[in-house]
């Protein structure tokens, strides 16, 4: 009981005296936990809602049958309905249809329209049934009606009875809103119409997206699947509901994991803050602890005293962090939606649910990080010999035990090994571990770097004469490197990660910009409001555009999605004219580490394809490999002749010659036209000429410069959250410097008192402190650049390719980094100055008379 009382007294006494430091530590933990937890909640909410919304469209079906290309012939439906073991077969046509007037928002202008057979759907997906006005049941089968979910009605600003215009290719059609749906998820924007009406009105006669199968009870699914697979042949895929879930999960998994990792950076930085404040607090109380030991406080009691301080801080900080994270998540979802600037979760409105398990996990992580930060100083306090510790003295010698060179070298060595390992289950786990080890190793080496660096500076300045301020600053930094390094830990961690992120994002952005220049070489791009994968331009409209005298060249593109693996999202297939003499004139070919096969060397009937880097990683489409692709109604042989860089699609894309595509499919329609202007023609004149065409008003015309701008805006929006998280980490890092400096000031009060006695002016002491803060942060920044550069190499060459399957070239945002470095040095020097001003403003003179 008495020992508990003593614990309490010591704890409360310490915090009462240094409440500021305790609060900074507590807040750092809270913010770190809050960032991680809120990002987790937001990602989970968006993913779960998106997944649930996707599942709700398939109702209670057991299996889905899809073509490997996006659409299939409806002739398969009666065969499936009659297949042995099938209880119900439900044909579905699912199309994304453009809404006139919404095209200004390039990522969000389409409505998901689902065509269903009301009688079949009633048995498998009853939620999708329309709810017509009373007495108008036949509206469900009418060819001019559409049923909308509540979210769709809100988005489109229509109500029951209104007319809704839709854009199908070059034609506009109007449907009557006949009512709502039996049930739709909150925020889910979908529309339902009769399947026959949808095929006709949306120009997809005879086509289906999928057939959902409900099997008879007691049937062995595996045996059934095997039989059906044999029956259907290679052009079809049978998808189980769990494949569907995996596919949805795979779409955003790398993004979610990367964002979660980034969110944990704040916590990681916070752990250094905990460590530095605890270590310095122990150092400051060294003689107090020694006295307690002399008075009979046992070694283990002292250990627990410091550990319990950490535990209390960890518990309070983590609790606050979990609460704060929940509030942040709710606020963000209310005002910004759940996508966090990415485009992975369109057309949904997720809601945050309190995830108790995740809350416990983040609480535990916060507490563990705090404990780890407290443990080393606690052990040090317990190990100190009371007799030595009572003597006023050398705090740096205590810290010296914390600097273990072999540990630092082992971390760096292990990090090097981990960079050579492949992705684990599609995630760059070893890459992240390598980053963590690089940081830990780098920070552990700081004392040695500090000594070496400042000794070097001292020697250089000695020759050129030195004043007392410079002398004292350099002497302290050279001879007490461990204390200095403690202050630097947090700032080094956050700054190096910021440098790494800045280099990675800049490299990515510059690469994307250069890539956009390559993939958007024309002056104008014209497309129609395509429905699904349908090519919007037929031969007549293509000829009409090509014949316009304002254009010197017109290239036609056909794009459609192909399902290669039911566990993964679809691959995009592009058919376009590719320069036969040198494909690099058309495609952003990546020849780094990839062979490029000349088209002249191909056998006469070999069709070439160029695959994106993701295809090499995900499907092993190596250059020279012969592959079979399901294009058109049949599968065809192709040879991979090159790899191109694609920052648009992380799940793979394939490019082929347009004439090859048209020859094997007979499909002459295209989705997009790239147009080059005649030299004397302005873009406005060309656009006017296009508008004069009979179908001109239905065209969606974009300038390549606008497309580039929009693409880069989307890029910046996607990375906005990463900048925010980095900023939080840097603020925590700077708080760490402030807390460390404040703590060090307290341990140095007697030093200041003595210096004032022997004639050092207040101004000179403050200059000395500012110089120490500035020099120390300067070194931290210098070292942070080096570490950050190393980490950026891991991010660029390991994490990104393993997560998103694309490579990039490295670029340095030098001016931005210099601005940040200057700001940080100024902030750190200012912080040291402020802390110092406070330290010498009081009765600093009296401190020389205190024993302790």
């Amino acid at each position, binding site marked *: 009981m008495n020992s508990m009382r003593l614990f309490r007294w010591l704890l409360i006494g310490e915090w009462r005296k240094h409440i500021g430091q305790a609060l900074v530590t507590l807040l750092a933990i809270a913010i770190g936990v809050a960032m991680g937890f809120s990002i987790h909640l937001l990602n989970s909410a968006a993913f779960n809602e998106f997944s649930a919304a996707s599942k709700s469209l398939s109702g209670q079906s057991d299996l889905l049958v899809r073509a490997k290309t996006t659409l299939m012939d409806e002739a398969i439906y009666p065969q499936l309905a009659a297949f042995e073991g099938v209880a119900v077969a439900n044909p579905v046509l699912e199309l994304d249809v453009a809404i006139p007037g919404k095209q200004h928002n390039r990522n969000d202008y389409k409505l998901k329209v689902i065509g269903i057979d009301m009688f079949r759907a009633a048995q498998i997906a009853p939620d999708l049934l329309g709810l017509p006005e009373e007495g108008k049941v036949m509206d469900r089968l009418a060819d001019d009606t559409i049923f909308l979910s509540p979210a769709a009605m809100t988005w489109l600003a229509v109500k029951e009875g209104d007319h809704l215009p839709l854009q199908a290719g070059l034609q506009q059609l109007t449907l009557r809103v006949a009512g709502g749906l039996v049930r739709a998820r909150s925020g889910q924007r979908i529309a339902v119409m009769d399947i026959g009406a949808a095929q006709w009105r949306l120009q997809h006669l005879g086509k289906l997206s999928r057939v959902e199968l409900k099997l008879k009870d007691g049937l062995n699914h595996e045996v059934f699947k095997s039989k059906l697979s044999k029956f259907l042949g290679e052009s079809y895929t049978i998808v189980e509901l769990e494949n569907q879930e995996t596919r949805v999960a795979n779409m955003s998994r790398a993004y979610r994991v990367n964002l979660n990792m980034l969110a944990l950076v704040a916590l990681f930085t916070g752990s250094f803050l905990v460590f530095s404040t605890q270590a310095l607090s122990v150092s400051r109380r060294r003689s107090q602890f020694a006295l307690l030991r002399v008075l009979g406080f046992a070694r283990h009691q002292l250990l627990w005293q410091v550990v319990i301080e950490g535990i209390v801080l960890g518990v309070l900080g983590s609790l606050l962090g979990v609460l704060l994270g929940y509030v942040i998540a709710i606020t963000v979802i209310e005002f910004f939606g759940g996508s966090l600037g990415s485009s992975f979760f369109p057309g949904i409105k997720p809601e945050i649910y309190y995830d108790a398990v995740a809350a416990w996990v983040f609480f535990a992580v916060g507490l563990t990080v705090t404990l780890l930060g407290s443990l080393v100083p606690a052990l040090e306090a317990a190990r100190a010999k009371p007799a030595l510790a009572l003597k*006023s*003295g*050398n*705090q*740096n*010698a205590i810290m010296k035990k914390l600097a273990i060179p072999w540990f630092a070298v082992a971390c760096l060595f292990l990090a090097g090994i981990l960079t050579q390992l492949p992705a684990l289950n599609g995630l760059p786990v070893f890459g992240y571990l390598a980053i963590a080890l690089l940081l830990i190793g780098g920070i552990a080496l700081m004392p040695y770097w500090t000594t070496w660096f400042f000794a070097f500076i001292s020697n250089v300045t000695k020759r050129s004469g030195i*004043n*007392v301020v410079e*002398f*004292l600053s350099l*002497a*302290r930094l050279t*001879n*007490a490197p461990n204390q200095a390094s403690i202050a630097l830990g947090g700032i080094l961690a956050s700054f190096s990660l910021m440098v790494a992120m800045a280099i990675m994002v800049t490299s990515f952005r510059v690469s994307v910009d250069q890539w956009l220049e390559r993939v958007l070489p024309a002056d104008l791009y014209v497309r129609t409001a395509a429905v699904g994968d349908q090519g919007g331009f037929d031969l007549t409209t293509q000829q009409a555009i090509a014949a316009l005298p304002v254009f010197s060249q017109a290239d036609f593109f056909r794009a459609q999605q192909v399902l290669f693996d039911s566990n993964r999202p679809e691959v995009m297939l592009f058919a376009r004219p590719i320069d036969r003499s040198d494909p690099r004139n058309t495609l952003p070919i990546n020849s780094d580490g990839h062979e490029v096969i000349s088209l002249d060397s191909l056998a006469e009937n070999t069709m070439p394809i160029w695959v994106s880097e993701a295809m090499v990683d995900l499907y092993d489409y190596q250059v020279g490999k012969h592959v079979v692709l399901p294009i058109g109604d049949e599968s065809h042989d192709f040879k991979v002749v090159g790899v191109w860089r694609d920052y648009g699609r992380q799940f793979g894309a394939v490019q082929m010659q347009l004439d090859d595509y048209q020859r094997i499919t007979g499909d002459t329609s295209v989705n997009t036209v790239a147009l080059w202007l005649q030299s004397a023609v302005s873009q406005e004149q060309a656009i006017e000429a296009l508008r004069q065409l009979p179908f001109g008003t239905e065209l969606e015309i974009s300038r390549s410069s606008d497309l580039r701008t929009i693409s880069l805006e989307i890029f910046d929006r996607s990375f906005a959250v990463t900048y925010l998280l980095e900023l939080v980490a840097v603020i925590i890092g700077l708080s760490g410097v402030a807390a460390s400096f404040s703590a060090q000031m307290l341990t140095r009060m*007697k*030093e200041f*008192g*003595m*210096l*004032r*006695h*022997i*004639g*050092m*002016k*207040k*101004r000179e002491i403050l200059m000395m402190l500012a110089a120490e803060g500035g020099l120390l942060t300067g070194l931290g920044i210098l070292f942070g650049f080096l570490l950050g550069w190393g980490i950026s190499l891991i991010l660029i060459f390991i994490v990104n390719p393993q997560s998103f399957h694309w490579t990039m070239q490295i670029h340095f945002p030098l001016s931005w980094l210099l601005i940040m470095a200057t700001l940080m040095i100024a902030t750190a020097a200012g912080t040291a100055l402020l802390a110092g001003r406070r330290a010498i403003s009081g009765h600093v*003179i009296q401190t*020389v*008379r*205190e*024993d302790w």
Partner: protein
Amino acid sequence: MSPNMLELRNISKGYAPGKRLLDHLTYTLKAGEYVAVMGESGVGKSTLLNLIAGLDTPDSGEVLINGTAISSMSDDAATQLRRELFGFIFQAFHILPHLTLHQNVALPLLLNGQSLQRVEEMLDQVGLQGRGRDFPHQLSGGELQRVAIARALIHRPKLILADEPTGNLDPDTAQEILELIRTEIKSNGASAIIVTHSHMAAATADRILNLSKDGLHPMST
């Protein structure tokens, strides 16, 4: 130059309204004089040293150093005067742990912009020859006080203020240190005021003064 190193003119200092520690105190210390100040705890010995050093200001009266009123100087000017004319020796040594002995002793020279040539010689004088590269944690208490003495005298100050310089030392070491202080003060021609409770320490001074409520008076031996 004034023949008086220090003049206290009618100085008063209180720590709370109506509670005076020093009351109309007047005293003159001649150049080259070495005095010890004794007195009960709480009588204001340390306050007196602070006032003399310009680290604190009297409520009334004047403190003159070498004829210059330090008590009415700005903080910067007082600091400048302290840096040039004063040397300090503390009970708790106050040697900077992150500086070598050489660097610690050199501090006043650096502050005064003087050459560091004398540092090793000074260390030799206080019996720490060849130890300039050592750090304070390698030293005993007596050795640390030797460093403090070297630091106090290195820039040839005119007035040494020592506050319980042997308070943390054993009798033998204290005796050695007191002899060293006297020798060094005399060989440098400095004046000195040593505040102490120790009769042994006080006995090394030219004169012993007693500080009490009645003022500063010679102590009867």
